[in-house]
């Protein structure tokens, strides 16, 4: 059989200039080029050309060690679509029985809308405010509705104009990133039919995947949607503009808020300014040096490679601790879980919140609940 694994035009793009090396978290950890985008593309070419076998141990290891964060894409002047290449790689290596067993349960759980709905029924999610489909509709992420139902509640409070139709399935990002590209695209198209008009997502990963399959004009991540909208962002009183000097108490009480970018939102969709501008309206925004870098959640990575995931996270936790943040905001449920666990492990006082939760509270934060024991 002489079928190709990779789209030749995608694979040919890389000229091995190495501009991607400093952007890659796994190269940063190891200093070994085999664990860099350029190195991995070399491995892809080698298996495509038959120089290395597909199940060569280094090839297998590197396809899994890669976070899939796509931080190499914005820095690539040649325009290599690394994320697409990685999906094709994993589609080949992890298909069927080669799929890591820890993944199978997850993929099974979200493969049908009915199962996704079950996830939501376990927890109180946005269903209480279910609203008929309109020209823009909120997508209820599958794991988010089980783990963080408060996110979609906050999103509907911030954007009451959004419809919240029933019968939503998974967007398919999980499948696409984990070795089942065809099913991942199929699920995205099904969701595109269930949600007419603009699909507003609270998860950067879902937004990027949907945009990749359905086209960018069909999709908006929540911060994009809010920034695009005419009306004020917060449902409560609008934050004072230019009146800071006359309201010293309010200014000094502003919480210190950092942001963890969602990799696919930033590197795939180019959205990074919007969440920052929104956060600046409700608090003192602090840009962490690692804000744009992957936190190590990386979809299923934290489950598949917990040790590497924790190594990638360490730097972020160091910076959060040093900046003594009140809140670290996230725009993706994977990052939410990753940071919550990391902050908890270190006993930091910082609260992890989705952007929508921070905005809906308009900076009036309740005392920290997570992060037990730390100074308050």
């Amino acid at each position, binding site marked *: 059989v002489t079928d190709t694994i990779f789209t030749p035009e995608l694979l*040919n*793009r*890389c*000229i*091995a*200039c*190495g*501009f991607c*090396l*400093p952007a890659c978290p796994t190269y940063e950890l190891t*200093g*070994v*080029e*085999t664990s860099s985008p350029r*190195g991995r593309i*070399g*491995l892809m070419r*080698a298996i495509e050309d038959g*120089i*290395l076998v597909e199940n*060569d*141990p*280094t*090839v297998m*290891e*590197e396809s899994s060690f890669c976070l899939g964060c796509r931080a190499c894409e914005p*820095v*690539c*002047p*040649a*325009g290599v679509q690394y994320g697409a290449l990685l999906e094709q790689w994993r589609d080949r290596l992890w298909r069927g029985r080669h799929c890591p067993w820890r993944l199978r349960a997850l993929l099974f759980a979200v493969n049908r809308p009915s199962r996704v709905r079950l996830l939501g029924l376990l927890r109180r999610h946005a269903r209480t405010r279910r609203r008929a489909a309109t020209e823009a509709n909120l997508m209820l992420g599958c794991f988010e509705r089980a783990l963080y139902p408060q996110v979609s509640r906050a999103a509907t409070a911030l954007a009451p104009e959004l419809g919240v139709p029933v019968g939503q399935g998974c967007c398919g990002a999980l499948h696409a990133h984990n070795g089942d590209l065809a099913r991942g695209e199929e699920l995205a198209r099904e969701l595109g039919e269930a949600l007419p008009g603009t699909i507003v997502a609270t998860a950067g990963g879902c937004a990027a995947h949907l945009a990749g399959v359905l086209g960018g004009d069909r999709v908006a991540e929540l911060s994009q949607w809010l920034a695009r909208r005419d009306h004020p962002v917060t449902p409560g009183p609008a934050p004072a503009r230019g009146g800071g000097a006359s309201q010293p108490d309010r200014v000094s009480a502003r919480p210190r808020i950092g942001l963890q970018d969602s990799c696919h939102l930033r590197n795939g969709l180019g959205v990074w300014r919007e969440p920052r501008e929104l956060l600046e309206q409700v608090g003192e925004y602090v840009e962490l040096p690692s804000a744009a870098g992957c936190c190590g959640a990386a979809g299923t990575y934290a489950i598949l490679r917990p040790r590497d995931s924790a190594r990638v996270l360490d730097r972020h936790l160091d910076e959060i601790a040093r900046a003594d943040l009140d809140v670290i905001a996230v725009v993706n449920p994977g990052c939410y879980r990753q940071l919550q666990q990391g902050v908890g492990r270190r006993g930091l006082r910082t609260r992890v919140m989705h952007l929508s939760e921070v905005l809906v509270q308009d900076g009036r934060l309740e005392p920290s609940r997570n992060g037990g024991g730390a100074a308050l």
Partner: protein
Amino acid sequence: LIVTAAVAIVGEAVRDRLAGVVGASHVRADAGALLTYSTDSTPLQRGRPDLVVFPASTEEVAAVLRIADEARVPVIPRGSGTNLSGGTVAHRGGIVLALTRMNRLLEIDPADLVAVCEPGVRTIELAQAATAVGLLFPPDPGSQATATIGGNVAECSGGLRALKYGVTRDYVLGVQAVLAGGEVIRSGGRLVKDVAGYDLQRLLCGSEGTLAVITEVTLRLVPAPEGSGTGMAYFRALADAGRAVSRVLSSGVLPVTLEFLDQVCIGAVEDYARIGLDAGAGALLIFGQDGDPRVIGRDLERIALACRAEGAISVRVAESPQEAAELLRARRAVLPSLSRLEPLTLLEDATVPRSRIAEMVDRIQEIAGRHRVRIGTFGHAGDGNLHPTAVLDPADEDAVGRAHAAFAEIFAAAIELRGSITGEHGVGIVKLAYLERQLGAAHVALLRRIKLAFDPHGILNPGKLGS
């Protein structure tokens, strides 16, 4: 004189001894890693090493070299592998000695105006550390975000500021290096004046890993300029921009930056950077000055005048530092951006005296046309350093052949105009065949004797400079 060149026979015993020096996890012999370290950034050049070794200290480097020298195994020192002349390709096998673990910035001393660092420090990290204390490390090659100081010294990298500030060799005050037999030497140091002995640090600058392995570098820093300004001028043709360059340089201005791009390059880089460049213009000249704000204003005005006198279509000074930074970032990205046109980009760096630049540009265009090769030309116009780049389909063997024939003529033209076959990318593998034409037989024979003195068994980066 025939210099012995080592051939690769790396047995289990050598591998075990090396693992004993650097630790087993820092020796890679798996097929995947060997494949990764078979190439650098040079197209079409590939050579599979037998091992990749990652030492952490000068002592470890010395021990590795002693073992390799005893076993007569080639050693190819490497930083981040952004080389563009095949200089770090192990085309005779052996050990790739990756120095990226030696990445400590040891000191920045504002009193002595020096920085001391290990070779694996990235150029941009050093530059930023200098900036943080009000100093400047001027050499800024296009690959500065990835490339290492060790690689920059070994290749004598240039960059966008060379016109005013010079190149890497002008900033290397001292080195610590390990000779092929494992002896550790120091040359130079923290002094501006020091004539004790031959100027070995200068010799090692641009030695392309063929004489010794550099394990520590002492670099000269200068006070950071008060400010900087950047501007751009569009021309109908690259030769017009070339003439503007000569006019600028004879008008009493020494700009910090004077870079040009032809139409092919403007289109490709705009496709990446999207900063609103006029892809319809024949050429773009980017100019810059730094220093006292009053001097900047005066000089940018003089440069603009010179450009208009040579028929510039439009001239514009960047209004904000962001706009200037975007312009320079776009310039650095020209080479990789060109691959948007075709997957194979063959790049050269022929250099001519700056007064001959318009002439050289015309010659390149004539040669490209005659060989039917699509060549985009960009480069450091102010120092006569051109980067004619052929963009091709690698599957089209005839086109690849025509491109090589065109480059042979371009090198000949550069030599004829009293220029060089390489301004800053190094001789490596790809230009070794042209070296004697430029230097002459006696000079090349001397290079071989120097190589022999440093590396009697020919283990260091064999088959390249000095071979």
